């Protein structure tokens, strides 16, 4: 049952998240595949190949797994991260042909990425993309994972995005960009972000931004809750299974969150369920107007096993289960949003709930009715929800909820990025690094594009925030 998705991980951050994603994906599929046969669900992310690297027939569920290869392209203009990936335990998922690298790096300069490395590696990258596409039977989507603050992920990433649109206009382009935090140590990150954002506005179908601050806060919160649960559950059990308080580097846990987002977003594409949701349905239901395709996500349930990676140790989820109404409350709380935002205080244009595992319709409807009362929706979509239910739960948890919202509070995130941009731009700080590659007018154009989208969301707040006016009915004569 091929319905493939090709991942493009670009830059240091993109590749680190990407690797965590592949690790989790393998574990998720392994947990649902006792016989180690190549299930149709696996063909979304993986190919089954023989020793010579050739695809082994169509996935029927009975063929044994020989060698798995990820449907991915790994791009970085430095070699450090990619080398680590290939040496690591998931290195076997990739062959050399899936990597594109250089040595010098993009110097945290979007323009160097977009205007120098992009064109330099254009042919190589696009040829490898085409090769990956040919290995697909029915490609659904490209997934771009990158950060906006640096040079490679932002510049090369958005360069590739544009060309994906040109060459494969019918394949959806989903992007999970990591927005830089206020105290990001890359000085030019505001420039890189705004310049990238302008590209995402024009060339992405759907953008699910992530923010380091928010991810880090969620990790801290979940760890605290887990500790409390462990302690209350059993003192001796807690002693046995707890290692040092800090298990894994903070970045690893944050990357796991991002990886879980991608898994939960695509679970319905891969596994069966009573109410399937494909990625094209997400675009259809969540994007009411062109260019307003920036969606805020929140994850609850599946993230409760952050403490221990699945590879070793007792799953912490053993101690920390959330029931349905807790999941729903968490999903709309500012504490679990994957960017720093509080959508509850602002206007919702659309919202999607993607549930996994052991949930039932009555519970969903009841909780929906309950949370809806506390939310403000546009007047033309007073009860508009997209609901999906995948039967297969996430790893180590009985159920989870991924909430994706198109909410006007994203305009505030953009405004804040814009303010940081202006602080540099007013003084023309570091501009000469960029004007080596682009005209200064490009900065103006990008700013205008971002302003336009901020304007769209602001307009929505004013025009659609009020009470429902009765619709104009057509007069008919029988």
């Amino acid at each position, binding site marked *: 049952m091929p319905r493939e998705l090709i991942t493009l991980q670009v830059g240091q951050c993109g590749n680190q998240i990407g690797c965590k994603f592949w690790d989790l994906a393998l574990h998720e599929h392994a947990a649902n595949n006792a016989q180690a046969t190549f299930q149709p669900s696996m063909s979304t992310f993986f190919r089954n190949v023989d020793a010579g690297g050739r695809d082994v027939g169509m996935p029927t569920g009975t063929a044994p797994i020989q060698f798995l290869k990820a449907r991915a392209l790994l791009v970085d203009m430095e070699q450090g991260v990619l080398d680590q990936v290939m040496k690591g335990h998931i290195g076997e998922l990739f062959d050399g042909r899936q990597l594109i690298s250089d040595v010098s790096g993009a110097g945290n300069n979007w323009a160097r990425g977009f205007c120098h490395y992009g064109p330099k590696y254009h042919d190589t990258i696009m040829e490898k993309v085409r090769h990956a596409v040919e290995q697909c039977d029915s490609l659904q989507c490209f997934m771009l994972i990158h950060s906006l603050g640096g040079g490679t992920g932002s510049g090369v990433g958005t360069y590739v995005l544009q060309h994906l649109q040109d060459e494969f206009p019918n394949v959806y382009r989903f992007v999970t960009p990591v927005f830089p935090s206020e105290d990001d140590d890359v000085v030019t990150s505001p420039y890189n972000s705004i310049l990238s954002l302008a590209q995402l506005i024009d060339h992405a179908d759907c953008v699910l931004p992530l923010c380091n601050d928010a991810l880090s806060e969620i990790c801290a919160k979940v760890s605290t809750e887990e500790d409390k649960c462990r302690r209350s559950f059993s003192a001796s059990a807690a002693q046995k299974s707890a290692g040092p308080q800090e298990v894994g580097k903070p970045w690893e846990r944050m990357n796991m969150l991002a990886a879980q987002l991608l898994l939960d977003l695509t679970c319905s594409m891969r596994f069966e369920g009573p109410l*399937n949701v494909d990625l094209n349905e997400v675009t*259809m239901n969540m994007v009411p107007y062109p260019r307003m395709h920036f969606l805020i996500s929140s994850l609850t349930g599946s993230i409760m096993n952050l403490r221990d990676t699945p590879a070793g140790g007792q799953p912490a989820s053993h101690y920390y289960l959330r029931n349905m109404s807790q999941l729903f409350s968490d999903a709309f709380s500012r504490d679990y949003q994957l960017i720093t935002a509080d959508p509850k205080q602002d206007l919702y244009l659309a919202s999607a709930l993607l549930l996994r595992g052991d949930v039932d319709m009555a519970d969903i409807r009841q909780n929906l009715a309950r949370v809806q009362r506390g939310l403000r929706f546009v*007047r*033309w*979509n007073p009860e508009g929800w997209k609901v999906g239910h995948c039967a297969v739960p996430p790893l180590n948890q009985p159920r989870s909820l991924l909430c994706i919202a198109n909410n006007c509070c994203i305009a505030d995130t953009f405004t804040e990025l814009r303010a940081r941009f202006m602080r540099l731009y007013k003084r023309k700080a570091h501009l000469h690094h960029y004007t080596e590659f682009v005209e200064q007018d490009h900065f103006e154009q990008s700013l205008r594009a971002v302003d336009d989208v901020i304007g769209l969301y602001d307009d929505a707040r004013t025009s659609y925030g009020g009470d429902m006016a009765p*619709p104009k009915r057509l007069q008919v004569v029988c």
Partner: protein
Amino acid sequence: MAVRPVVATVQLGQCGNQLGLELHDTLLREAAASGDAAFLRDTQETFFRTTETTSSSQGKLVARAVLVDTEPKVVEGVMETARRSKGWQYDARNAYHQQGGAANNWSFGYKHLGPTVWSNVADMIRREFEAADMVGGVLLLGSLAGGTGSGVGTYVTEMLRSEYRKSLLLNGVVWPYSTGEVIVQNYNVCLSLSHVMQDTDGVIMIENDHIHDICTKLLHINHVTFSSMNSVISQHLANILLPSNRAVSVPLGGVSLTEPIRNFLDPVAHLCCHPSYKFLTLKTIPQMPSNTLAFCSNTWPSLLKHLRQMLIVNAHIDEAMDWSVQLPADRESGILTRMSSRVGARQPPTPQYQPPHHIVSVSNMLVLRGGQLSTADTVPFTHRALYAPWSFSPLLVSGNHWPLGGCDKTAALLSNSQAVAPSIDRVLSKALLMYDAKAYVHHYATHGIDDEAFTNAFMALEQALAHYKELSGST
């Protein structure tokens, strides 16, 4: 033995396929439970065919069905479930699925995917018809919220009409929960209904809200799933699709069964005799949890009285009904005196007091299954005030001695009436509210559904609605 006209089912999308699986299973199970060989044979011949017994394998019972979807998982799952656990299966050649899904986009389903689907599916349907001695018609099952059942389903309906002008087409359409399963569901519902009503012979409206209520309030199911809802819907449809005989009222009281109804879709033609009135609702009584069935014994008078009131007030469940709504006095029928003694005093209409409005029908079909039919008085369903003045012979009664669903007596009412109006009105209002803001229209425009197409769709539904509302004015 008379040749029985067959009914081919086209199962569209996730909902249509999962419902279709449950429906075929229910039909076979209920027919087998009757213990009557003729009843079982008639059911089997209509909805199934038997493959030939060869030297290597037994003849198998194969559903006369075509499975269509725009993504693979459900069709493959449904075929596998039938093959593994049921005493019947689907024909492996009759499944067609694509990969990408219809994106909940009616225009994508209708304009872009429909033609490809039809080019594959037309042969499957032709093969089913050629395997039959006589074709009764086609039953299409699908939901209206998404893109496949709605968009592709509309295209398939149109193609079936143009290819098989004389066959009956019945669309069983599932309405999504009004609190939302798909954000653009109201657009998809409006676009589907406005198109389909031109080509189909009848549309049976099945509403998730209603089915959910039945599950929770009457059947006391704690964890309602789509699977439990599909069982309930299948039970309802089985009432009207299983074999039955025409029934006539006899002077001594009750009904008497006469000749069998050969084409199960014929009642549709009867109910939808007027091109402006194509929408049908289905109510059944009683609805009881299975653990209480054995202790319950209903009488026809009681069942029919409740069912009639469900019709009059447009209730989908027999609970907390408004019994104060009654039909205007009709001295000729003299029915009202018996009814009014039931609850309170009937107030005479005065200029200040206007009696609450009752549902007016174009026509109804009443199906009674169970014993003691001589005690079933259907005359109250012929009350003039229930019908538009231009309806003649507006009530068709049919029945069968074999009970259904473990219940000793069941009554089902398939109605072409104003009962459809509130739902159509609600969906139209919500769609117009969204359209007013031009939300999501760019997704539809990408595949050729522009402003004019939307306006035409809304207009067609407004007209249909106006026709139904007018039924009251004319009485």
